[in-house]
């Protein structure tokens, strides 16, 4: 054993970069909501970017180490403590057998990624160690961690150093209000032009129903739909469609009131229209939104989405160069 979980936080789970390839059977990709942060946490201690770490939301776990190890915490601004002594986020630090890792209060963002030397060792299921709780799959028994759980790490001969760090300009967190870029599409034509314009003009607030499946938003104007004759097999509500797949990041608006952006543990399909999709480079940012935070959706086209993806790739490459 390498780690004993003494307190588990609100919802701490084992995550890596996910499990692509099974979405057609309703098994979502899962993995860290802030993938950039998980990659960087691993890089900071010399792990592979795809090694499994922990994702903790709003409140950190308390973990006792039974072996010497190295740790890095990235993502949200929630400082780690070793036997009570503060450590920096976005930096590597050593921890000795018998020492306890705990966390300070959350100051900014929503989720920390905790990388541990070698990565957490649970069985690889369908190509990944990520936890998908709805399907009781992956991670530790397919569930969030509980007090008393014991975790193993993969033995690693890679050299880790203390004090490796990533400067502030190479980190990513949403601003305030958060700006989330969205490509209108899918069933966008179901909205009146005026209503579509208003969706991007309104300021929305993150609702309390915000988890790994999806983020709900409130406070904007209800949407107005274009009149139609109900297609056979779709429900009678104007927001219903014949059940289809849901892209990751797609924004559905049941009954036209509260938009929900699906995330890594997405339900893979259903019968609600979607007005567009969060671009791939901004998915990580959603994972760092707190309830009640003001959020603006910004309309972009494919060209801008691809440019934003390129910028994110460049950022990651700079971190790789810095740490390798």
């Amino acid at each position, binding site marked *: 054993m390498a780690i004993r979980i003494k307190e588990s936080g609100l919802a701490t789970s084992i995550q890596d970069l996910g499990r*692509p*390839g*099974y*979405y*057609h*059977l*309703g*098994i979502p990709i899962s993995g860290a909501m802030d993938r950039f942060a998980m990659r960087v946490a691993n890089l900071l201690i010399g792990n592979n970017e795809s090694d499994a770490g922990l994702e903790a939301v709003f409140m950190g776990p308390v973990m006792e180490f039974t072996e010497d190890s190295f740790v890095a915490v990235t993502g949200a601004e929630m400082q780690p403590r070793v036997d009570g002594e503060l450590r920096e986020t976005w930096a590597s630090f050593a921890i000795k057998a018998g020492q306890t890792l705990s966390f300070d209060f959350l100051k900014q963002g929503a989720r920390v990624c905790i990388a541990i030397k070698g990565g957490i060792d649970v069985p690889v*299921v369908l190509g990944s160690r990520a936890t*998908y709780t*709805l*399907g*009781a*799959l992956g991670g530790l028994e*397919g569930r969030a961690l509980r007090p008393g759980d014991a975790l193993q790490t993969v033995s690693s001969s890679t050299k880790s150093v203390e004090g490796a760090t990533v400067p502030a300009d190479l980190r990513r967190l949403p601003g305030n209000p958060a700006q989330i870029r969205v*490509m209108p*599409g*899918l069933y*966008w034509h179901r909205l009146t032009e005026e209503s579509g314009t208003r969706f991007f003009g309104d300021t929305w607030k993150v609702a309390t129903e915000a988890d790994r499946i999806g983020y709900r938003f409130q406070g904007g104007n209800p949407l107005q739909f274009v009149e139609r004759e109900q*297609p*056979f*097999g*779709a*429900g*009678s509500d104007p927001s*219903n*469609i*014949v*059940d*289809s*797949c849901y*892209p*990751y*990041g*797609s924004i559905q608006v049941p009954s036209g009131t509260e938009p929900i952006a699906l995330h890594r543990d997405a*339900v*893979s*399909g*259903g*019968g609600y229209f*979607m007005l*567009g*999709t*969060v*671009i*791939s480079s901004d998915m990580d940012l959603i994972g760092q939104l707190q309830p009640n935070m003001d959020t603006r959706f910004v309309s972009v086209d*494919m060209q801008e*989405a*691809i440019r934003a*993806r390129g910028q994110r*790739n460049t950022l990651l490459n700079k971190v790789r160069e810095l740490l390798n």
Partner: protein
Amino acid sequence: MSVRYSFGGDDHVFVEIEEQMSLEAFFKSLSITNSVRESQISGVTEICPANASYQIKFNPDIIKPEDLLLELKRFEQHAGSSGRRLKTRVVDVPVLYNDPWTHETLMRFRERHQDPSGTDLDYAARINGYDSIDSFIEAHSGSPWFVTMVGFVAGLPFMYQMVDRDRQIEVPKYLRPRTDTPKLTVGYGGCFSCIYSVRGAGGYQMFGITPMPIYDPDQGISYLKEFMVFFNPGDIVKFRPIDRETYEEYLGQVESNTYEPKIRDFDFSLDDFYSDRDQYNRNIGEALNGD
């Protein structure tokens, strides 16, 4: 059929074959997605057929969105007559209709239902013009169903009734979704039946429960050892009403890991089906039970 293409962000293509549900649309979706899978386009990471649409996830660092779109449109043009036959299987699914567990659940969430005075079966039978629950159950279990999509949650099949449209059962979903549904509930929403693979939230009307597990992440169940999800799009399902005694018997077999679902291979032809649906459905029944 006017096929509609849309990008879902910079890493999905969403393709609506038809706005309404039809077997034609499903067969086209299945045929195109099969071609995409066979062609092994580099950069494609997820290929998801759905009821009357499909979705591809891709890595735009590897394949340009507009290049993938062109490829998919080419597949659409070639999805002709070869896509009207399907080598598939027929599966027997025993169902305890009107069971105590979904009944307890539907009573618990009655205020979220269109008609709080009766049960989901009462309501579905009435609005579909059946004079009793029994005749409604007869209709639900009397014809086979096509699995036209697997998803929502892991391993959940959406099934489409193989009868003329004017005989198809249609029911709305609950006014507000439940926060609980028993595992293996046989449900109904819109024109689709489903089997809830896991316990959880749900908005479909609840008709009964099957003892036959269809998802096992631990892969301990004998027939789910090779893969944890039982159903695939294209499977044909025949529901078989069972009584409480048979239900308990099957449950015992599931617990001792000796339950084996009845499965037969079947070569399905859409054109033969259209020429005489009732006769064709009898053939499907014979393929399943004729030995």
